[in-house]
């Protein structure tokens, strides 16, 4: 138990370090406004978590700090010039409606960050999908000017990506501050997989699924297969979502085998919806829609474990057909 608690805190530290690195990159491109946004999101999430835990008659522990990393994920999925009030509402939504109503971190159903992003998309879609150009800095309380569509939008609708590989690696293209820094995201993925902080199966499934479909069905006929794979992985927050949302160990199935297929299904569905609708960042929406699949796979894992245990033990345990027993997690 103690080991598990420690593990949760270490996961939070590792993830937060990688997110802070992305925040620093965002500061380099967009200035102090992106840092302020991250700070506000983290502070509001922390405060909301504390209040809601108090209302649930629970104590706040270091494990509950995971809400701050969720907040940083939310801030990195927004344009750095996003209205602070919208960011505040999104963070409150993530902590309360998407997490604590279902019992908090011990009974997670949705990825709070993904649910909050979809919530923002449904309510303030236009504001969420217009970004400042890199190196255009906006003051803390200035009204943003000359906002543009993201490189993902241009890629989805035209099949073109007018950036060099070097610019793509460094994140020097318009888009959400966190999802554009590809080199940093690759480093983060490697670190988090080796530290076992994220589900390797889900991550590999997502990358493999997107890469494979991009290879056989490019967005545009003018693209080579290699370019199609490259651009499909770096746009539409695919890499970012693969690391921080789909591979979130709180949500993804525990066994890597199932997690792989979970990631693969999300990637396949997302890519096909992208091809047919050209919708931006569709992978986040699909990851929320696939929550029942993750839960179904987890239920399957439990049933297999129970069957395995009953095979080993001389007296078989009865399985509850209606699922009326308390959650055994």
């Amino acid at each position, binding site marked *: 138990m103690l080991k598990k608690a420690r593990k949760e805190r270490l996961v939070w530290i590792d993830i937060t370090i990688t997110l802070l690195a992305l925040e620093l990159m965002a500061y380099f491109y967009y200035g102090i406004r992106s840092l302020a946004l991250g700070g506000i999101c983290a502070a509001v999430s922390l405060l909301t978590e504390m209040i809601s835990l108090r209302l*649930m008659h629970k104590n706040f522990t270091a494990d509950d700090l995971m809400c701050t990393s969720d907040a940083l994920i939310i801030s990195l999925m927004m344009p750095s010039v996003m209205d602070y009030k919208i960011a505040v509402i999104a963070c409150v939504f993530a902590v309360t*409606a*998407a997490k*604590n*109503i*279902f*019992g*908090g971190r*011990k*009974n997670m*159903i*949705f990825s709070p960050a993904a*649910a909050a992003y*979809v*919530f923002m*998309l*449904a309510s303030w*879609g236009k504001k969420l999908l217009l970004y400042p150009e890199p190196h255009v800095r906006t003051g803390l309380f200035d009204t943003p000017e000359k906002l543009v569509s993201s490189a993902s939008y241009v890629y989805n609708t035209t099949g073109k990506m007018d950036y060099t590989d070097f610019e793509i690696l460094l994140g020097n293209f318009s888009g959400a501050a966190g999802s554009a820094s590809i080199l940093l995201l690759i480093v983060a993925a490697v670190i988090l997989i080796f530290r076992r902080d994220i589900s390797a199966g889900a991550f590999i499934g997502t990358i493999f699924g997107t890469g494979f479909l991009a290879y056989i*069905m490019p967005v545009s006929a003018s693209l080579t297969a290699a370019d199609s794979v490259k651009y499909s992985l770096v746009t539409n927050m695919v890499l970012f979502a693969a690391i921080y949302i789909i591979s979130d160990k709180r949500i993804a199935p525990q066994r890597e085998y199932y997690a792989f297929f979970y990631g693969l299904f999300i990637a*396949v*569905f997302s890519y*096909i*919806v992208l*091809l*047919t*609708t050209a*919708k931006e960042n*569709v992978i986040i*929406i*699909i990851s*929320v*829609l696939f*929550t*029942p*699949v993750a*839960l*179904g796979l987890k*239920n399957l894992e439990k049933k297999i474990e129970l069957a395995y245990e009953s095979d080993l033990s001389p007296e078989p345990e009865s399985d509850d*057909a*209606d*699922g*009326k027993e*308390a*959650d055994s*997690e």
Partner: protein
Amino acid sequence: MFLINDFIALLAANLILTQALGTSTLFIAANSRRNLLRTAFVITVFTVFGSIGAYFADRLLPEKYSDLRLLIYTALIGILYVIFLSALFFISREKFEKSRKYIHISAFNCAVMGTLFTINHRAAGDSSFMNLKSYAAAGLEAGFGFILASLILTAAYRKLNSAKVPASFRGFPAMLVYLGIISMAVYTLK
């Protein structure tokens, strides 16, 4: 690829997730996972046969008497209700005792009646829809939508009723929020 597109279309046209039709029935049936899936199946039977009946009613009913549509649909569902109960009774008494509750729940509710009115609304806006095949297909689609929503709820059933959920939100309230977030994702996908 087409299958995935069809699946997304089924989600986008889902009457529960997009119009909340049949939500009460879904929750009434949600007292166990087995009930939920059986009710979903019976509702599908009602929506399909009800839609077929609604087609003939819509064809025969003059527009100036449209206020009578509800009465006709109700009579139609009432007839189906009696037929299904009688058929079950004559097939097997044991099955009748076991399964009649599903028929009781599935007959008069927003899922079935809402499907009929939604189909009628569609046919009123698009004359090419006014044929038996389209009506039956739309009824089947609505039924599948209900089954899909049941499966979505079934997957989270244990977590939504877990002792870890605060007592005030355990069960129905958590189910509503859960369906709301899934419905939100469907909305952004449209």
